[in-house]
């Protein structure tokens, strides 16, 4: 009993500590986004001198936020859909078949996670430019170029997690379907994929978040027309004269899609990791 009370006290102190460190920056973002410009130009104050929603309307004309938003949406959705589809196929092969090169493939894909992005950024840029010159496919400065790049960023983690997830699902269900005359691919998409939805959704969220937040490659591979939110906001934030209240408003607007999606589906993510990744 004594121990239990001590633990409860410890838990409350711990939870307060974690709540404070989490909330401090979040509170700063939210309150600054409803402050008038004078407030963010002088010494920081914890509460706005008056509440205004002007930053939320002004930011759209201060920077081309709508354009960035649309670009990020197209690129992130494209990368997510394609990478999830490709990851499902590869994970199915690794989980259900024993084929020559299986281990080598897994190792190759996982080890790409280790590469410093900086090592292949410049060569990739050159390859894209030359592909355009030789084959005529425009990759540099186009949506396709960034979609292809981002989908590979999410692939290793997606495949690794889906393999674990598929392994936890008994083969008998697909085998029953295959006895009824369904092909292997039919069994995958009609039996295994519906059952694995939590894992697939988790992988999809991860892929979308990866693409939505990427800075380094977007800064080199996009041009003015395809600039993403990450590059657009960073460029604005490092200018000398920044309207911080408008920038904080923009920060909230661009965070809503990912934070809402992530939080709505967080249980799937925890389940997905518990079922898949953790067992490795």
């Amino acid at each position, binding site marked *: 009993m004594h121990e239990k009370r001590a633990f409860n006290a410890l838990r409350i102190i711990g939870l307060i500590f974690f709540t404070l460190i989490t909330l401090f920056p979040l509170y*700063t973002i939210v309150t600054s986004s409803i402050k008038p410009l004078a407030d963010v130009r002088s010494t920081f104050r914890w509460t706005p001198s008056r509440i205004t929603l002007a930053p939320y309307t002004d930011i759209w004309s201060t920077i081309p936020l709508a354009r960035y938003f649309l670009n990020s949406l197209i690129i992130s959705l494209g990368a997510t859909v394609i990478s999830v589809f490709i990851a499902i196929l590869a994970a199915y092969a690794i989980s259900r078949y024993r084929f020559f090169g299986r281990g080598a493939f897994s190792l190759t894909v996982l080890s790409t*996670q280790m590469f*410093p992005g900086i090592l*292949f950024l410049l060569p990739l840029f050159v390859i894209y430019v030359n592909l355009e010159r030789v084959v005529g496919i425009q990759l540099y400065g186009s949506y396709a170029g960034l979609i*292809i790049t981002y989908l590979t960023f999410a692939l290793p983690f997606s495949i690794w997690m889906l393999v674990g997830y598929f392994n936890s699902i008994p083969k008998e269900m697909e085998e029953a379907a295959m006895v009824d005359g369904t092909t292997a691919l039919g069994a995958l998409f009609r039996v295994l994929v519906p059952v694995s939805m939590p894992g697939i959704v988790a992988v999809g969220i991860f892929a979308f978040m990866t693409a939505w937040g990427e800075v380094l490659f977007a800064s080199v591979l996009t041009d003015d027309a395809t600039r993403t*939110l990450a590059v657009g906001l960073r460029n604005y934030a490092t200018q000398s004269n920044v309207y911080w209240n408008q920038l904080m408003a923009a920060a909230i607007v661009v*965070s809503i899609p990912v934070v809402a999606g992530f939080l709505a589906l967080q249980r799937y993510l925890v389940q997905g990791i518990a079922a898949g990744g953790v067992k490795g």
Partner: protein
Amino acid sequence: MEETKDRRPEVEVRRGGRRSGERVSSKRRVRPQTLPYLLVLPALLFELLVHLFPMLVGVGVSFLELTQFYVRNWSAAPFVGLRNYLDGLDPSGPIGSALAQSFLITVAYTVLVVGGSWVLGICAALLVNSEFRARRWFRTLFLIPYALPVYVAVIAWSFMLQRNTGAINTLLVDNLHLLHERPFWLIGNNAFWSVVMTSLWRSWPFAFLMVLAGLQTIPTELYEAASIDGASRWRQFRTITLPLLRPVNLVLLLVLFLWTFNEFNAPYVLFGQAPPGAADLLSLHIYVNSFVDWNFGLGASMSVLLLLFLLVVSVIYIRVLRVGGEENA
């Protein structure tokens, strides 16, 4: 598909029905052998195009004197053998000493961020994993920093770290009176602590998420049995939780190490293309050498050195701790 279906009866007729079941099943085993290759092919092609092939090109470039004079015409860049590597590894030269300093800063930064994230993540996961009413709210709250886009988190911190208009100095100087002078956080030696704090705030929720998922795979019966036997909570943590979390922790620490050591976003968004010496992390150091000083050959050789270092550390880690070995299965 149609083709095989048509052919199968013919095979069975020829075999005369004897052991026909076995023939069909071995026939099936042959066909799927091409299928798995087709299934992994798209993933493999994209990885080759975006990662492996450019990486090989990058290794090639590291042997060239690819400076701004040759950017337009790569084939004219002179081959210099190992000179880029020797420059990078020579601690008495200006390039080598800057790289060595950047390496040491990155090591310190990685130790602090990975260690801090891991400790915070385990503590928070243990706090949230026990039964109480508001636990879902806390879990949601703690995951928000990880759910935010990286650049949003870093931009928010760069606003908070402003000397005159930032929240940090108001808190430390005006509210808590811990300091008398308003320090600069984004220039000088404090920049190191700024980038550590920013990264830590963003990465501990990932450790929290992984450990929480790991905790949920531990059967509660184990704890019930242990508390019936009179084991204290601390003892339960040491003898049940930690050993059963081992597989999660091993993977988590490796992933955190790789991500943190390669971290580019936090210093780039905080400081731009001219980071203060104290916060000159390796990825940004290489970026500045390649894209600001236009010395791609040197930048590529530094990247290769970074890759080799990560490879050696990872292989040693996996061998010594047997990550993914039979004992975890």
